[in-house]
């Protein structure tokens, strides 16, 4: 049932030497998937803790999602979700409970049966208490009732939109084996690095600095899957080496833009290699300019709008992202049509408007042609955040703002921006995770303590925005909730507390032998049970 849609999706998203060539390249006979083979993929980092129930992050999911499964996965079909460990779910009208029907006949890799007790334990003791994102979404989770082994009922102290819980299922609900974790120090449990799950692959070995090795779980609940015998994650931190390895067929997949954008046009022409832009919609990143509202010039909405006017989004997308990005209008990416509204007064590129607004705000050009000086801190997270920092410096100079680039490494950057507030402008890259309430509204909400990263540490406080966020959090009806978020987008679009420049995600480069690539919106961080290697 998946094959048809995945193939269509794959073609629509694959860039290469043009449509015709792409079609002929993929015009393979639709036969049965080949069993066997070892898939070798590139990995650029080795998280210290691989437990996806504790750390909901793509670096962890990339490896762990094959071993430990969530209740449901994102999908291109239907309502956007495909069942995994849960087969059905429904929220009560009062918003105070969600009922999950769990899959039967599932066993853990150590042979013990999977039951509702595992889900209850994971939800109450791990997601709610320890998980970076779960602590927000499940904060009102009071109890999980388990009337039988295949039913789990989540009870909330305050009305919690079922829509939010449903949207959180793919990223936030990795289920851990209760029998290995109960009564232990969960954060220090050895199973955090030697994972035990229910997924299609078993964790076999991690040799630091070299590789991870996962092997086929013969007892997987989805009979006949997985197709691959093993997956090896080869640690290749250098982008040049990744490109070379895939050309040499030493690896069959380089995900998460491991091959630099600048190399894609060339590598797409190599026979047997395809460039895939799909499969990441569920993890859309946003390139943003974070603004310190404590600085008096920047507290003025006209100045913020002027800065937004100074940015040529087309240039940024064409040159820095080489076309592999889209202009962003606001905090919700266009992909998420449930919440997105294009009806936002985003300032377009116009240096004339920028200069006019700055003049109006009372900051005229001085003797050296500059109006005021700023310190600009580009986040070191992506090559593009650094390069956009260089571009922004140039764009701001053009309208008479003298920006000095201050570069820090990761901890230095987080400390400067999110704890010390020691910046004027910063370039950031927040992630949109399938619902505005998971990691997006926190960037606007006021009253958060200092030291919490990827949250409003900008000194921005707007009563109307706060009210809209609170209203959405208590709105049970999905359509109504979406409407509130559209109002929210309009308000921040006008105020520009954070300037959204582009939305981007990752690009995969794969060997064409690798099949069923990018067949869901979180493909690289999904379980790869149906992925196979043609001979």
């Amino acid at each position, binding site marked *: 049932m998946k094959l048809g849609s995945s193939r269509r999706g794959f073609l629509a998203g694959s860039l290469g030497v043009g449509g015709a060539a792409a079609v002929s390249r993929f015009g393979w006979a639709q036969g049965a998937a080949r069993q066997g083979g070892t898939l070798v993929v590139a990995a650029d980092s080795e998280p210290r803790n691989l437990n996806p129930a504790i750390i909901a992050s793509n670096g962890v999911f990339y490896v762990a999602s094959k071993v430990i499964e969530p209740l449901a996965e994102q999908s291109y079909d239907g309502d956007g979700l495909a069942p995994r460990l849960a087969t059905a779910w429904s929220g009560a009208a009062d918003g105070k409970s969600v009922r999950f029907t769990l899959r039967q006949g599932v066993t853990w890799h150590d042979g013990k049966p999977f039951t509702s007790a595992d889900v209850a334990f994971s939800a109450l003791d791990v997601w709610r208490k320890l998980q970076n994102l779960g602590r927000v979404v499940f904060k009102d989770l009071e109890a999980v009732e388990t009337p039988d082994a295949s039913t789990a009922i989540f009870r909330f102290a305050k009305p919690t939109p079922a829509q939010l819980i449903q949207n959180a299922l793919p990223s936030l609900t990795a289920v851990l084996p209760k029998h290995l974790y109960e009564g232990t120090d969960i954060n220090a449990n050895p199973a955090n690095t030697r994972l035990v799950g229910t997924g299609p692959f078993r964790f076999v070995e991690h040799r630091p600095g070299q590789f991870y090795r996962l092997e086929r779980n013969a007892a997987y609940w989805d009979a006949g899957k997985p197709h691959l015998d093993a997956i090896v994650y080869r640690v290749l931190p250098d982008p040049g080496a990744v490109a070379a390895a895939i050309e040499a067929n030493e690896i069959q997949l380089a995900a998460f833009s491991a091959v630099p954008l600048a190399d894609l046009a060339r590598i797409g022409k190599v026979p047997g290699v395809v460039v895939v832009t799909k499969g990441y919609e569920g993890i859309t990143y946003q390139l943003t300019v974070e603004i310190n509202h404590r600085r008096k010039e920047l507290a003025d909405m006209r100045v913020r709008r002027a800065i937004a006017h100074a940015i040529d989004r087309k240039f940024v997308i064409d040159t820095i992202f080489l076309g592999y990005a889209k202009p962003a209008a606001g905090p919700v990416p266009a992909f998420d049509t449930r919440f997105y509204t294009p009806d936002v007064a985003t300032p377009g590129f116009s240096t004339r408007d920028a200069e006019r607004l700055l003049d109006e705000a009372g900051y005229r050009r001085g003797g050296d042609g500059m109006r005021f000086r700023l310190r600009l801190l580009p986040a070191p997270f992506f090559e593009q955040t650094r390069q956009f920092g260089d571009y922004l410096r140039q764009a701001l100079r053009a309208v008479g703002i003298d920006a000095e680039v201050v570069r*820090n490494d990761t901890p230095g950057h987080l400390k400067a921006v999110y704890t010390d507030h020691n910046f004027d402008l910063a370039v950031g890259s927040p992630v949109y995770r399938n619902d505005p309430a998971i990691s997006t509204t926190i960037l606007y909400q006021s009253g958060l303590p200092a030291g919490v990263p990827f949250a409003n540490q900008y000194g921005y406080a707007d009563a109307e925005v706060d009210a809209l966020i609170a209203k959405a959090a208590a709105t049970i009806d999905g359509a109504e909730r979406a409407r509130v978020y559209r109002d929210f987008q309009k308000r921040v679009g006008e105020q520009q507390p954070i300037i959204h420049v582009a939305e981007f995600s990752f690009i995969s480069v794969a060997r064409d032998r690798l099949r069923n690539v990018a067949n869901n919106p979180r493909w690289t961080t999904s379980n790869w049970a149906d992925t196979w290697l043609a001979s």
Partner: protein
Amino acid sequence: MRAVLRRFATGGGIAGTVLFALVVLAALLAAVIAPGDPMAMAGRPLIQPFSDWRFPLGTDRLGRDVLAELLHGARATLIVSGAAALVTLLVGITIGTLAGFIGGRLDDALMRLADAFQSVPTFILALAFVSIAGPSLASVVTAVSLGAWTAPARVLRAEILSLRRREFVDAYRVLGMPPLQIAFREVLPNALPPVITLAAVIVANAILVEAALSFLGLGNPNSVTWGAMIAEGRAVIRSAPYLSAIPGVAVVVTVLAVNLIGDAANEAIHARRVQVP
């Protein structure tokens, strides 16, 4: 002096001077040949060298003019390595003089400190320092000096140890001159020549360390550096190897020039010192 100059004017000495003069000229004329911000994204990305007269050496990934970057990079390189060499020499000379002339516990302490600095890998120290202090002109200069001051300090200390027993020092003592004044005003100038010949080595080392730091993304972000250019080119090394090759050649030429000058100066001064007695 004329004899020293004549001995300096060997093939190597002249070649080194000419090459170095070219680098200095490039640095001085950078703003004339390539006016404006060298980091400006000025043209189409990845223009090959010698294919567009407006960008003789082509453009990089973001459409920055490689020639402009190269010229402005010469400037940054000379400023950083010059400043680093100066700081290194100043610190080294001060510590060497104090250790050699005062001796005793202070000498012991300073030499253990030098031991410590010489037994850790200096580049790792520099890297740690710049990561933590944040990349800027001052932090890069400090980082380079941290790893280099021990050499001039030791050389100078040895020289001073051999000079402090000479008669003229005793004479000043008898005259009642304060010890530090004797050390810095009278002994130091006599002990300097061997340190001066070290200067070339220090400058060359400073250029290489700065390039390596920039290569790892730890150069001053507000100016173009050759090391950063090499690193930028790395992402497209297969389709545009010239982006890494060109700035690398610039580093090699500059270091080569400094080494040639150093060798020639060393031989010229060495010969004089041998002849005089």
